[in-house]
């Protein structure tokens, strides 16, 4: 059973803790820790996006790497055109995050709508396989198209800009990422509490009943899937700026798996689940990655343990299982 008070407390700890650690690191002059926290925030934002489709809508997408990577490519491509001065599709490039973000969301959201419209013609196992396959298509297209780096990826020499901040400084970029993460979580919470969210969750639980009270499952799910892709794309644009590199590996299938893992480790459908999940994943990577190059073996064993014995993730353990259905 879910304990609301405990979950609020955990959420507050997660939100403020993610702010406090880099603040301490800023004071202690530990820029690497700030960058780690930025990575957590960006991955968590990508997870928040996927959580709309997977957690609220029950759409198990194994293809969100496509939207994450597309966001990254938007950041990389616009920055490249801004520095070369060459127009793209008749428009100038840009190195302003405030321009890049909406474009990244638009591109990722549009592709998500197209993939969703095809994938939602099926359900269950088919949906998983099809989203995975279409994401692989986007990946192969990116590596076989040499104009923007192909297999080598696309470097971003100077991070894109945000008015009033110097994004080359780790703390400034962290603030931007944390702010966007909180905004993303706010959108997620709004959706979860809205009529739209109620319809989405009703469809997850029983599409036939939802349809019988006049909700169109396809339309609601498609809208949620497109929005989910757009938010994950926004996170991708941030990730490209964080690593100053757009890599085809952002589009590759292991990334999709990582995003699902982030959600499961934190707790499916929980507002702050992706934050907990991203923190666990990055923490795991840093801790065990330093000890052994085979840390993914241990990650695999932990995941297997979570699936078999601790369904509900970290927030489920602390604040009780979510009541689904």
């Amino acid at each position, binding site marked *: 059973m879910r304990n609301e008070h405990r979950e609020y407390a955990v959420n507050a700890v997660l939100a403020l803790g993610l702010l406090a650690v880099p603040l301490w690191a800023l004071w202690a002059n530990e820029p690497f820790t700030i960058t780690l926290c930025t990575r957590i925030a960006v991955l968590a934002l990508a997870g928040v996006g996927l959580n709309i489709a997977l957690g609220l809508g029950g759409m198990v997408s194994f293809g969100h790497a496509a939207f994450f990577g597309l966001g990254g490519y938007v950041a990389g491509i616009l920055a490249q055109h801004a520095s070369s001065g060459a127009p793209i599709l008749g428009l100038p490039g840009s190195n302003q995050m405030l321009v890049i973000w909406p474009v990244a969301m638009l591109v990722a959201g549009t592709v998500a709508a197209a993939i969703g419209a095809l994938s939602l013609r099926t359900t269950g196992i*088919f949906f998983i396989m099809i989203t995975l396959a279409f994401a692989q*298509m986007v990946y192969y297209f990116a590596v076989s198209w040499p104009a923007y780096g192909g297999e080598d990826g696309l470097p971003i020499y100077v991070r894109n800009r945000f008015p009033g901040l110097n994004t080359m400084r780790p703390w400034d970029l962290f603030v931007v990422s944390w702010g966007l993460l909180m905004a993303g979580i706010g959108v997620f919470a709004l959706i979860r509490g809205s009529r739209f969210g109620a319809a989405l969750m009703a469809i997850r639980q029983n599409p036939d009943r939802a349809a019988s009270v006049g909700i169109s499952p396809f339309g609601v799910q498609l809208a949620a899937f497109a929005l989910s892709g757009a938010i994950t794309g926004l996170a991708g644009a941030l990730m490209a700026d964080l690593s100053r590199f757009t890599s085809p590996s952002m589009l590759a299938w292991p990334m999709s798996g990582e995003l699902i893992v982030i959600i499961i480790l934190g707790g499916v459908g929980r507002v702050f689940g992706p934050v907990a999940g991203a923190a666990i994943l990055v923490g795991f990577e840093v801790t065990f990655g330093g000890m052994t190059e085979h840390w993914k*073996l241990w990650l*695999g064993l932990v*995941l297997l343990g979570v699936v*078999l014995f601790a369904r509900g993730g970290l927030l489920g353990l602390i604040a009780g299982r979510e009541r689904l259905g």
Partner: protein
Amino acid sequence: MSAALFFEQLLNGLQFGLMLFLMSAGLTLVFGVMGLINLAHGSLYMLGAFFCAAAASATGNFWLGLIAGTAAAAAAGALIETAILRRLYTRDHLDQVLATYALILILTEGTKIVFGPFPLYLNTPTLLQGTVNLGLTEYPLYRLALIGFGLAVALGLSLLITRTRLGIRIRAGENDREMIAALGVNIRALYTLVFALGAGLAGLAGALVGAVQAVQVGMGEPVLILAFVVIVIGGIGSIKGAMVGALLVGIIDTMGRFLLPRAFGLFLDPSQATVVGAALASMLIYLLMALILVLRPQGLFPAHA
């Protein structure tokens, strides 16, 4: 473009398609009978290739390697099914995805630890080296043998499914699990057997393909995703669908990569045509899948019509 080259590419496509069929057949059976999505099927393909390469280099005999690779993959499959996956049949697909994704991580890293991080090389058997004259073109004997081998396994599998008692049970399991358990069939043993059969087929495919490509970590997942495309096109749970889907994917992918750059060359300059053609060719089978989804979302030959 000569007819010989065209014919050769067509044979390559056929060979690719048959190897995809070996992958897809096991996946689609496991979907059909147990309702399980197994992302680790690609890892079993990889295991088959690694065990084949290791056994072949230890014994100096390719055929022993082939048997070892197939047996190792089947045994790994049986072990995974009894230890882990059988707990997941009643769970939702998300749990299955996550557990089998975890298995990919474990098997991939485990392979790196056991066999080292570098690719292994597997030589084609001496019996099948060289080329053979097919009239239009000289074709590598080993690749021709792969076609024959793939067809033979496909025939064997279809006889197994349609003509044997085990096949009857598998088909019955696809139709109604509870009923065949109630009729006294040991359903758990049947599940393990079906899973091991699928794993063995994947391992066999990995071992066979390992001799024409490098045997390396991560070789399984691209093939796994292609096998998903095959199953979406062919229809879930259907061996016939897997065959048709695999041949379509194999031939269209190979011919697309061969023909599209040439087709664009008719009206673009050569360097541009290569780029556009190659990029489009890499997307072709996914576009085919999209088309099938629009026209027949249940696939060409759904098992449960």
